[in-house]
């Protein structure tokens, strides 16, 4: 006897029959009947009329029957909320059952019944089950909290379930931990600002321990959760990486990808010259290669991800070119993705191999693939200059095959090669011209016409060729028409005598007989140019063209960064941010990679800095706006004797390094608020919009207190001054030098990075005057090792003036003593993060050199403070 008969009974009185069977006394018969009901439900028949009868079967000690009834309940409870209440009692009773399977089953099913009225009855049993002795019940209850939150978020918060859930993260059973993490992650996503998943080194440690013990699916939850954490420094990030890397050899590709995501993100924080960084790079390659031996569906998803990884860190897979060679039995969508990655990985080292492959592909059967392969050859030529010649000869070989679409595709890419390497490969033009007649696609025709126009002086019969295109002018697509118009005008400017008639013909065709505004306007422009000033026309039309860029279709850097944070998810397959395809509040949060260049050290100032080596990644190193030295050496600053010292503005980001955006600026403290004063100048030809600013973590937690207020678009050659208030409550990390600030500025064109140094006097707060007694006690209390002495030379102020000047920058004189003609000034400074600096300044009448001793519990700041003294006193 088989179950399939349930699907075939479709008689009229079926519901009636089922009703009778459901109310039968025999257990077997009841079970059969419920099965029949569920079979009908699956195929889409409405069996909701049987609700009371099915619910009646619920009170049974037969687990199989109970499960079937619950299955039915979950499906129909929503449409019959009043009836569903009938089931509540049984649920509550089942939650007390001695059998843990039944307890778990009840709590699981109750959560799936999405009826408001039931939820209130659910709270008590759920609370008990969350603390159940059986881990199977606890893990089910953890998920149930997420279910309940989805139905009634307020209730979950009021009942304190979230705290219980947080406690479960420390549960002894890894399965429970995994489910608690999954549930919390989901709940946290709908409250972006809540601190639900309070990730700190301790909780991370717990998660890493559970990671080793739980099932593969649990590992995915935990890894995804880890990916949201931002380590405090490179050491923590390295230790997490070390514990995550073993997951890379897991058999489940989802685990591997989640681990890759964590590593790609945390790698960002590791200094590049660290040995471990290189080791990690090497470890990432094999698992990615392994993914390519999976079934085509997984391969495709893997390739889409690898495409992102290769754009971000090409060094990972640079030696693995061969695995991306296509196999003849790959589905076409896999082939196309592989081809894309091959071009991204192409370099001088492997170009010969790549070209040989591409040439093979160009003779395959699938038209789309062949086209893309031909195009790829052109892209290689543009990307790797050394290979250009070989690429061109390969393309010529392909043109010889006379296969129509191959020829057309080859001509389109040869046009690009001409643009990239002008006056190098024109010898092939003759061959191209032979194939003029076979071109029937607009793009190929337009490319060919462009070539003829551009090199009209070298093609003897250029006028004839163009004339032949002109015959069917109105049947051509706009692309071809525009190109033809330009090409004939070029021809005319190069050979004015023979082609006057031709140019008049095309101008009248474009201006009088065409309805297309683009074409007409271009026609008129040429016409007027030619009639008013042929010399100017020549300068305009035959002007030197800018070179085309090397890499095409790269993903925009900010989007790429966000996508890297979503490796392994749908976003990485669509290559779109999740906000573009996920509805509601979920996933709207934009994830960002941590800004690089993190330097070891302690999280909070004053707790003793580790003597970590100062390393900055090369990318951020370049545009340093000028060290402190030259900052202060510039004379003629705005000297305000009694006000706070403000260094003169310097160029932080030169225009040549930022695609035309120049940024200069300085820092000031006005009325207790730290201001970053920026001057943005647009030296590019296009308008800049959408400015935004972000700081990397820095020693004193400086962070923008508001958005960068550039409200109007910045036109070419326009300058705007912006004042950005800063707060000191941002994330903290020790920088070297201490007052270094790494800044990222974004506009519609790109993201630019620079670093600048702020005078530490910005951070001296107004209430920095210490009580005398306290000063004395503190001075004694700080060990002598923390004292440092500096000389300030060539300062011609007397002690009175110096004291006044310093006070303007919140350096307060507490006492003054005169010993043997020397004025001893005792001063105190308080930094925004609560660190006190005590100073003793020795001023000798007639001696321009001052001696200053600084004492502080965090002696690292002394150097910066000294520099401030010097700057303030000399300005």
């Amino acid at each position, binding site marked *: 006897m*088989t*179950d*399939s008969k349930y*699907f075939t009974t479709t008689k009229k009185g079926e519901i009636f029959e089922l009703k009778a069977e459901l109310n039968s006394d025999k257990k077997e018969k009841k079970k059969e009947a419920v*099965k029949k009901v*569920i079979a009908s439900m*699956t195929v889409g028949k409405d069996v909701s009329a049987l609700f009371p009868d099915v619910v009646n079967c619920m009170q049974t000690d037969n687990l*199989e029957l109970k*499960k079937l009834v619950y*299955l039915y309940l979950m*499906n129909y409870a929503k449409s019959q909320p009043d009836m569903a209440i009938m089931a509540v009692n049984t649920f509550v009773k089942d939650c007390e059952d001695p059998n843990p399977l039944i307890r778990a089953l009840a709590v*699981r099913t109750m959560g799936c019944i999405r009826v408001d009225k039931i939820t209130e009855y659910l709270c008590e049993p759920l609370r008990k089950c969350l603390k159940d002795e059986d881990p199977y019940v606890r*893990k089910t209850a953890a*998920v149930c909290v*997420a*279910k309940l939150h*989805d139905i009634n978020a307020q209730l979950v918060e009021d009942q304190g379930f979230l705290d219980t859930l947080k406690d479960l993260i420390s549960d002894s059973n890894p*399965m429970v931990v995994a*489910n608690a993490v*999954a*549930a919390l992650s*989901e709940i946290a996503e709908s409250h972006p600002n809540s601190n639900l998943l309070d990730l700190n080194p301790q909780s991370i440690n717990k998660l890493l321990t559970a990671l080793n013990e739980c*099932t593969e*699916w649990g590992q*995915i*939850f935990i890894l*995804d959760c880890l990916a949201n954490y931002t380590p405090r420094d490179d050491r923590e990030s390295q230790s997490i990486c070390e514990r995550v890397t073993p997951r890379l*050899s*897991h*058999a*489940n*590709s*989802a685990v*591997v*990808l989640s681990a890759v995501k964590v590593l790609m993100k945390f790698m960002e924080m590791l200094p590049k010259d660290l040995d471990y960084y290189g080791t990690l790079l090497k470890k990432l390659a094999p698992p990615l*290669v*392994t993914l390519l031996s999976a*079934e085509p569906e*997984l391969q*495709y998803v893997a390739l889409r991800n690898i495409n992102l990884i290769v754009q971000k860190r090409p060094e990972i897979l640079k030696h693995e070119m*061969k695995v991306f*060679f296509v*196999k003849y039995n790959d*589905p*076409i*969508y896999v082939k196309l993705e592989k081809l894309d990655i091959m071009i991204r990985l192409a370099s001088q080292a492997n170009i010969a191999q790549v070209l040989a492959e591409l040439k*093979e592909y160009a*003779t395959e*059967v699938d038209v789309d693939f062949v086209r893309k392969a031909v195009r790829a050859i052109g892209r290689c030529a543009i990307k790797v200059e050394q290979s250009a010649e070989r690429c061109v000869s390969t393309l010529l*070989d392909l043109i010889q*095959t*006379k*296969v129509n679409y191959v020829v057309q595709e080859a001509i389109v890419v040869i046009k690009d090669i001409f643009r990239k390497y002008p006056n190098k490969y024109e010898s092939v033009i003759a061959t191209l011209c032979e194939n003029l007649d076979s071109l029937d696609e607009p793009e190929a025709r337009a490319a060919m016409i462009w070539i003829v126009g551009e090199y009209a002086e070298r093609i003897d019969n250029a006028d004839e060729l163009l004339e032949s295109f002109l015959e069917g002018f109105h049947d051509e697509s706009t692309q071809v028409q525009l190109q033809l118009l330009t090409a004939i005008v070029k021809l005319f400017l190069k050979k004015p005598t023979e082609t006057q008639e031709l140019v008049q013909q095309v101008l009248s065709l474009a201006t009088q007989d065409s309805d297309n505004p683009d074409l007409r306007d271009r026609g008129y422009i040429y016409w007027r140019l030619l009639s008013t000033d042929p010399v100017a026309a020549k300068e305009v039309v035959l002007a030197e063209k800018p070179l085309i860029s090397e890499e095409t279709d790269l993903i925009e850097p900010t989007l790429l960064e966000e996508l890297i944070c*979503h490796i392994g*998810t*749908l*976003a990485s*397959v669509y290559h779109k941010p999740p906000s573009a395809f996920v*509805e509601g509040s979920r*996933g709207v949060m934009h994830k960002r990679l941590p800004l690089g260049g993190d330097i070891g050290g302690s999280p909070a100032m004053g707790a003793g800095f580790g003597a970590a080596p100062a390393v900055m990644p090369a990318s951020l190193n370049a545009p340093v706006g000028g060290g402190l030295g030259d900052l202060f050496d510039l004379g003629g600053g705005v000297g305000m004797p009694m006000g706070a010292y403000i260094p003169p503005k310097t160029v932080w980001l030169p225009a040549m390094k930022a695609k035309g955006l120049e940024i200069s600026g300085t820092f000031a403290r006005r009325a207790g608020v730290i201001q970053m004063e920026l001057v943005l100048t647009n030296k590019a030809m296009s308008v800049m919009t959408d400015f935004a600013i972000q700081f990397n973590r820095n020693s004193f937690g400086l962070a923008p207190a508001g958005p960068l207020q550039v409200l109007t678009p910045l036109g070419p050659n326009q300058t705007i001054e912006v004042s950005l208030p800063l707060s000191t409550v941002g994330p903290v990390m020790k920088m070297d030098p201490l007052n270094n600030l790494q800044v990222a500025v974004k506009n519609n064109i790109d993201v630019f990075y620079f670093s600048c140094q702020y005078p530490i006097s910005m951070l001296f707060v107004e209430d920095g005057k210490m009580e005398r007694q306290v000063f004395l006690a503190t001075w004694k209390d700080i060990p002598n090792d923390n004292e440092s002495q500096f000389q300030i030379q060539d300062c011609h102020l007397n002690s009175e003036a110096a004291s006044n000047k310093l006070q303007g920058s919140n350096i307060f004189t507490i006492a003054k003593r005169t010993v043997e003609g020397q004025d001893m000034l005792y001063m105190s400074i308080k930094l925004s993060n609560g660190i006190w600096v005590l100073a003793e300044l020795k001023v000798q009448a007639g001696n321009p050199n001052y001696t200053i001793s600084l004492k502080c519990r965090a002696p690292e700041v002394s150097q910066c403070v000294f520099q401030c003294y010097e700057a303030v006193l000399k300005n």
Partner: protein
Amino acid sequence: MISQVFILSSKGDHLIYKDFRGEAGKDAVNKFYEMVTALTGGQPPVVMKHKELHFVHIRQGGLYWVATTKADASPFTIIEFLNRLTALVKDYCGCLLEKSVQMNFALIYELLDEVVDFGYIQTTSTDILKNFIQTEAVSSKPFSLFDLSNVGLFGADTQQNKVAPSAAATRPIVSSQGEQGSKNEIFVDVIERMSVVIGANGVLMKADIEGEIRVKCYMPSCSEMRIGLNEEFSIGKSQLSGYGAAVRVDECSFHQAVRLDEFDTYRILKVCPSQGEQTVMQYQLCDDLPTAPPFRLFPSIERDSGGRYRTLFIHLPLLSLFSPSLFSSLSQELSSPDQSAELQPKNKAVHWEIPRFPGGAQLSALFKLEVSGLSAASLQEVGPVSLSFELPKYTCTGLQIRFLRLSPIQPGPSQRWVRYVTHSDSYTIRI
């Protein structure tokens, strides 16, 4: 997070439908079928999107196994999950057919309930699930040990293999009925897939082997199994032994249940196989094959003087691809009457089939193709020769199972089967 899971027959009948999160309606099922049948060849079928709902599906046993999600979920997770689900259904119901899914719908619903909760995947281990599943599987036909039909290795379809009772591998793993459960059998399969590219000049351009060791276990309580591999088995390029006789792979990954404490010294994998099928070890080898590739080909192409015919001399099994050109007819000379060859104009290919090919033998074929408008350039278009083959009892890496020990010794008779097979994944010879 998985929103719904459903199983459709190839004709679009609803076999199983389970909603986990109440986010999407049941109309999604029909929408999916509409979309999947409307796909063209070039479109990647992996992830499909309809409004806010994303479909991820795989095809197994002629059925569509589909999961939907509304969040930015991981397609890897979902595809792996669907594959595991099919494995589970196979373990519980015996085989993956429309009929067996239909017959066991109650069991599959029960499985789904345990495997996924609110869209979170809980566990896919047959062993753990055994504790929760109440429903018993219904088998489509009574199992007979003597039924040695050509079902083949569970990893692959084969015609030649009659080494092990193949049908034994297609019965449900989990069964409480006495007569079936008492059969203590364990299958260990070493399966290798080759992808090879041989250049026009006969140089081996690329050779990759992907291999795996799979275990299918029918023993209800197997305590520990020790699988001994070749003692000279080495991993990674650096460990090449002096005499070059080592069995070497580049990369190796293991199932998380495998214990490797004796692997480093004795090359022994220790595993407590749970009932059902699992991949114990996967490995890869790139480029440095220990032996020459199993097939060689010496093709030659000639144009006859009249320029109207093209003649191909080919010495081996082939699937030869031709690029665009029109051809009208094919004539052939094959070395044995049981072979066949046909021209497939749609694929622009000649397909040559060889039912059996003993080792150390040489076969040859000569095809004459009439090609209209033949030119010197069109010779360049003669595409590569591709081979599809299956070699039973052969591994390219030389990996062997030295022994298979169960400890403690199982009471009663137990049968242990070790099987080897090498498949072509993509074996291409360029002309």
